[in-house]
């Protein structure tokens, strides 16, 4: 894949991830717990990882969060979003390298680590360790959304045979 094509692809993927997170923010889940969401933007990152385009996956993880903060949510949520996004990226990257997990398992690890990373930042920012009582609920939510996004990403990755990431044509 040529350099310019790859840059264009990463940009399109970032736009798609941004769009997914925006659409998701328009329809809050009917769950009485703040911070629980589907994490559909993660499907884009996971598809890129499954296609072994790690650099683009990293780019999408970081730039999506920055754009989302600049366009919609402002700086206040930025640290949370970035920590969750980065931690889940590296956990999923490692899981793909060292384990034989399928896309669902990788995505579940990503979802759970995303939640726990944000919880840790929340505890640090508010200086309130009592917030750790959220851990169980957030882990359950991360698992559920991880299964969903893992199924979607796995199916999409299979349906995109020509999308070869870093490999040369």
């Amino acid at each position: 894949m040529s350099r310019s094509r790859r840059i264009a692809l990463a940009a399109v993927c970032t736009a798609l991830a941004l769009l997914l997170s925006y659409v998701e923010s328009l329809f809050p889940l009917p769950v009485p717990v703040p911070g629980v969401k589907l994490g559909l933007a993660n499907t884009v990152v996971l598809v890129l990882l499954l296609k072994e385009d790690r650099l683009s996956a990293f780019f999408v993880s970081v730039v999506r969060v920055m754009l989302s903060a600049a366009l919609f949510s402002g700086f206040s949520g930025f640290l949370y979003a970035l920590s969750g996004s980065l931690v889940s990226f590296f956990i999923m990257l490692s899981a793909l390298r060292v384990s034989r997990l399928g896309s669902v398992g990788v995505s579940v690890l990503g979802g759970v680590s995303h939640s726990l990373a944000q919880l840790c930042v929340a505890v640090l920012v508010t200086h309130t360790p009592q917030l750790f009582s959220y851990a169980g609920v957030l882990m359950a939510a991360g698992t559920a959304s991880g299964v969903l996004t893992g199924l979607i990403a796995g199916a999409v990755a299979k349906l995109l045979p020509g999308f070869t990431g870093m490999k040369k044509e």
Partner: protein
Amino acid sequence: MRKIFSRADLWLLIALVIVIAGIWLLRRSGSGQTVCVRVDGKEVARLALSRDGEYPVESVYGRNLVKIRDGSAFVAETDCPNGDCLRGSISKSGDSLACLPHHLTLTVEGEGGIDAVSGK
């Protein structure tokens, strides 16, 4: 091509369900008596859950209106940008609710649980 769901995924899910169930069982579910309101981890108010009422909380970060009704505490109004804290209410001992942009947390305390153990 990597599988969508493998045997390893099944084991991972089973392990997670066990951990989550464990956390859920360990969490005491006794109804609490007071709500501790903290900003930056420092207690700014302690409210009885048994009495309905409204309590404005102002800090350098912004303003929230904490309400207590029928033994549950929740944030009724806020001037934070995302308003995540408006979702959810707490009543059980150990439950927490947070308005992260304002560094504000509500924690139900009393009757069993971690607080009783630590004697706090």
